[in-house]
């Protein structure tokens, strides 16, 4: 088993390299690069840039070299020094920009997943065992609505209610006073106080789907003979369900654990909608637009 896992990990390496090459090429494709931008900026501030200066800049950023050389330079720095270069937008090293966000986003994504599971898995098991009961019908209705409503929209509604009804501020991961302070127990508690809402916001989106998956898997497993065998051993109904069909039915859900990783890097934006006050304006507009048609009825 260990050999198999190692083999899979080794297989990732060429894939990552291929993706990095593609990403590098795609970034280069549109016209304009960092040098033209730099020149434009200088010109905008009233400095005339001579041809010689432009050439010097091009050489400084290595833009005179062929693409494969630039790629090799870039990738070798990443591998050897974990240096992704410098972000001209944030005016910080890229690695620092990534790390700042990834830690929080990963934590939020992880806790959101845990929230989804602790809510959805027991409900999924319960409604499968009580198939076609009133509870099952109610949960089915709610989950279908949940599947139909986009997660971001649901998030907006929860934020709106949290803000208007309970006065909970949804912006920022820290209170003002802790924002700049170094890590301490107080700051950690403050983080937890602010984090639970984004966790629930993100987690709720997955609940409906997970309930459906769990229910469908359980229904398949409950019909199998090993369930009767387990009952025939004299186990209590709870032990039978938890030790046998649930143990198998949980597999597709557990195998999606690694789905945590892509959003941790690429969709930090969705959780930052809760973090960055600047975005709240757009959110509020969104809520107004969505609520407005509802008023007509």
């Amino acid at each position, binding site marked *: 088993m260990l050999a198999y896992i190692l083999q899979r990990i080794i297989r990732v390496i060429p894939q990552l390299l291929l993706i990095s090459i593609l990403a590098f090429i795609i970034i280069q494709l549109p016209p304009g690069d960092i040098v033209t931008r730099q020149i434009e900026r200088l010109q905008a501030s009233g400095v005339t840039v001579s041809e010689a200066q432009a050439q010097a800049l091009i050489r400084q950023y290595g833009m005179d070299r062929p693409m494969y050389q630039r790629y090799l330079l870039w990738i070798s720095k990443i591998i050897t020094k974990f240096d992704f270069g410098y972000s001209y937008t944030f005016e910080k090293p890229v690695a620092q920009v990534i790390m700042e966000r990834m830690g929080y986003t990963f934590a939020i994504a992880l806790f959101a997943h845990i929230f989804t599971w602790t809510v959805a898995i027991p409900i999924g098991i319960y409604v499968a065992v009580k198939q076609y009961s009133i509870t099952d019908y109610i949960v089915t209705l709610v989950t279908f609505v949940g599947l139909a409503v986009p997660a971001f929209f649901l998030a907006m509604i929860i934020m709106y209610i949290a803000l208007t009804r309970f006065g909970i501020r949804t912006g920022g991961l820290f209170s003002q006073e802790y924002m700049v302070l170094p890590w301490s127990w107080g700051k950690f508690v403050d983080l937890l106080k602010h984090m639970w809402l984004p966790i629930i916001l993100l987690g709720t989106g997955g609940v409906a789907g997970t309930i459906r998956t769990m229910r469908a898997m359980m229904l398949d497993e409950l019909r*199998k*003979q*090993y369930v*009767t*065998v*387990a*009952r*025939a*051993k*004299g*186990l*209590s*109904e709870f032990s039978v369900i938890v*030790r*046998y069909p649930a*143990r*198998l039915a949980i597999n597709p859900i557990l195998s999606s654990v690694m789905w945590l990783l892509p959003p941790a890097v690429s969709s930090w934006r969705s959780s930052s909608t809760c973090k960055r006050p600047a975005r709240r304006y757009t959110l509020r507009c969104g809520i107004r637009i969505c609520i407005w048609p509802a008023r007509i009825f």
Partner: protein
Amino acid sequence: MSDQVLAEIKNLHTYFYLAEGVVRAVDGVDLTIKAGRTLGIVGESGCGKSITALSLMQLVPSPGKIEEGEITYYQTIHQTESASTSNVIEITKLKPNSREMRAIRGNQISMVFQEPMAAMLPVRTVGAQIMEAIMLHQQVNKVEARERAIDILARAKLPNADRIVDTYPFQLSGGMRQRALSCNPDILIADEPTTALDVTTEAQILDLMRELQREYNMAIMYITHNLGVIAEMAQEVAVMYMGKVVEQTDVASIFRNPLHPYTQALLRSIPQLDDVMARAGQKKRLETIKGMVPDPYSVLPGCSFHPRCPQFMEGVCNEVEPAVIEVEPGHIVRCHLYASRSTKARAN
């Protein structure tokens, strides 16, 4: 000791309430299970054999329900080597999930199921699944339970039992299914345990069951549609059709003197080597029972076998429900043909 009655099933009715109608899976069955004896139950698919067995363990799957009848279990508790007390338990009065019922299930009444591969969870080791039952019913710790599990596997003639204990079910072949015996039950219900196995493995398993029966004076309720296995295993045979026992007698009479037309038809549909040789060259087909088992939702007036019966009597079989007739001592049949020959007609 050997004829001690362990369980009695009286007038058992187990019905399934479905949207399409009521399925009378078991419709008035009387059976007696005796220590050290094997009761064979034969019949076509869907005649209620398995549901009778599951009723005995209170494991009838939903939406099935035991509607009527009594199942009495005469429990013997061995306190010491010589002394033992008996307990009369009305199984039908216990709740399916009650502690009392679960204490009997898997401990004193065990069941072996049809499909060897589907009977175990693929993600837990064989040992863990056997030990679970041992630890549930006997006061032993994990180490002792493990030793017993190894002992059981060794007893089941599996080579390298101490290694097999840690394997996963998919690593084993279909032949290993003896886990139900893990608690030396009083009654073992075997629901077509060898149907999915090859003939040599089947023979081994049958031998093993008989060996354990001799050793523990265990009662076996053997469910099958293979009459050959019945001849080998059982002392008593009950033939079931449409939820009813249509004929019940000892194993010799069922083969030499079958009375019910259904039993006769079943026996005729077994290929006989002599016949096959005699028929070689002629284009004669093996005899079958004409027609199909009727729609399970239907309630037929009179005898439920009448639409397929070669000795159908108009005005009798399709109108009057046949009573249980004891044609000879210990040989009962539910058929109008024997109404006059009864030594003692019992009203249903």
